[in-house]
């Protein structure tokens, strides 16, 4: 059931300890900063977070990690010049890391939303990231079995929503938003603008409202 709320605090109020939380964004583009701050404030702990990276600088996801609220990161690229909070927790053995090639991350998230039980992909075959995984040769190519990544909650950022929860994005800020919205039980979306139902061209909707649960406008 679609829900429009007034504050980011209301938007994240039902996120529970132990949840798996997908967070959209690649670099700063598409990062739902205000929702992440609200997640910080709401106090939920023991989180498994799915994001391409593992936080940067002293804000957002990096701060959640610093405060010990993240039990496990599922990501493709945790190591960045300013990922010091993750680095410290990782080296101290205080955070788990599931490192996933970026395309497998995207496809596994997509699989969760699309009801796929698992798939074979050549990406990672013969590498240490396939160790312990089922493999088989298909059409002469080595392939690795990968499983869907489901989430309790997705926090994503879009440009506009209409009254039915349909979303459009802006440029490369689209990135993980559409697939995370489909993979999570509850999708919480911050948008720059809410437009009347009928104002979005049905040909150009990127995320249909069926994938959206909560919308909050962030100035």
């Amino acid at each position, binding site marked *: 059931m679609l829900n429009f709320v007034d504050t980011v605090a209301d938007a994240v109020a039902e996120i529970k300890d132990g949840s798996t939380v997908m967070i959209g964004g690649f670099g700063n583009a598409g990062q739902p900063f205000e929702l992440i701050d609200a997640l910080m404030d709401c106090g939920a702990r023991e989180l498994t977070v799915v994001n391409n990276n593992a936080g940067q600088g002293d804000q957002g996801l990096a701060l959640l990690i610093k405060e010990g609220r993240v039990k496990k990161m599922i990501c493709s690229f945790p190591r960045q010049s300013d990922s010091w909070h993750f680095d410290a927790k990782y080296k101290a053995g205080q955070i788990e890391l599931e490192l996933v090639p970026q395309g497998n991350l995207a496809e596994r998230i997509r699989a969760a939303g*699309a*009801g796929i039980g698992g798939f074979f992909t050549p990406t990672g075959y013969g590498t240490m990231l396939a160790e312990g995984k089922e493999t088989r040769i298909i059409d002469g190519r080595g392939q690795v079995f990968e499983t869907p990544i489901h989430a309790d909650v997705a926090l994503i950022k879009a440009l506009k929503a209409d009254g039915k929860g349909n979303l459009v994005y802006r440029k490369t800020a689209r990135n993980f938003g559409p697939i995370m919205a489909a993979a999570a039980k509850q999708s919480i979306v911050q948008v720059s603008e809410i437009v009347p139902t009928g104002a979005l061209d049905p040909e150009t909707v990127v995320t249909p409202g069926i994938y959206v649960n909560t919308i909050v406008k962030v100035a």
Partner: protein
Amino acid sequence: MSIETSIQTSATPLGRDDLARLVAKDIKPGSFVNLGIGQPTLVSNYLNADRDITLHTENGMLGMGPEAKGEQIDGDLINAGKIPVTELPGASYFHHADSFAIMRGGHLDICVLGAFQVSATGDLANWHTGAPDAIPAVGGAMDLATGAKDVFVMMTLLTREGASKIVEACTYPLTGVGCVTRVYTDKAVFLTGPGGVQVRETFGCTLEELQELVPVPLTAAPAVVP
């Protein structure tokens, strides 16, 4: 008041339109629904706009409106039954893989399907008569049967020959295993699942009379079921 009389909600069997109205009434406001070809399509006549129910058609659209008439007819805007339809405000279009991802990913609240047979454990047979010379054709039936959160079946309880379509085990080829949650028929509404077949209400018969027609054990559903 006996259980039998308490669940008989109509003095006569329900006609197709009354049954469609009943199914429509049972769909919660805000739901996303796929209505199968044939009898289930009638349900759309009773979904009032104020209940904010969004219809999905598997050929690539959410927000499908009523059948198109006259100048509304547009060859590029059809439903899964290939009937021209209309577009409601807030609609969206997507390609076939994205459309079936909506179904297969468990995002539809309800799909309503016709059936040849439904088993006591909710197995569905609705795509193939099993006749050896029949050309098989499945379409989206198996995806709808396995994907939606709730699968409602609409059918007459009995075949033309008088046999129950609710059966111990389907004799027709299956569409899906254990997928049906509710069966709407002219004589009763049945709830199916691991706990056996429960009867929510009957039309024009008592539970005892219904039991004589149906070859699986029936029990009255708890009154709380909506």
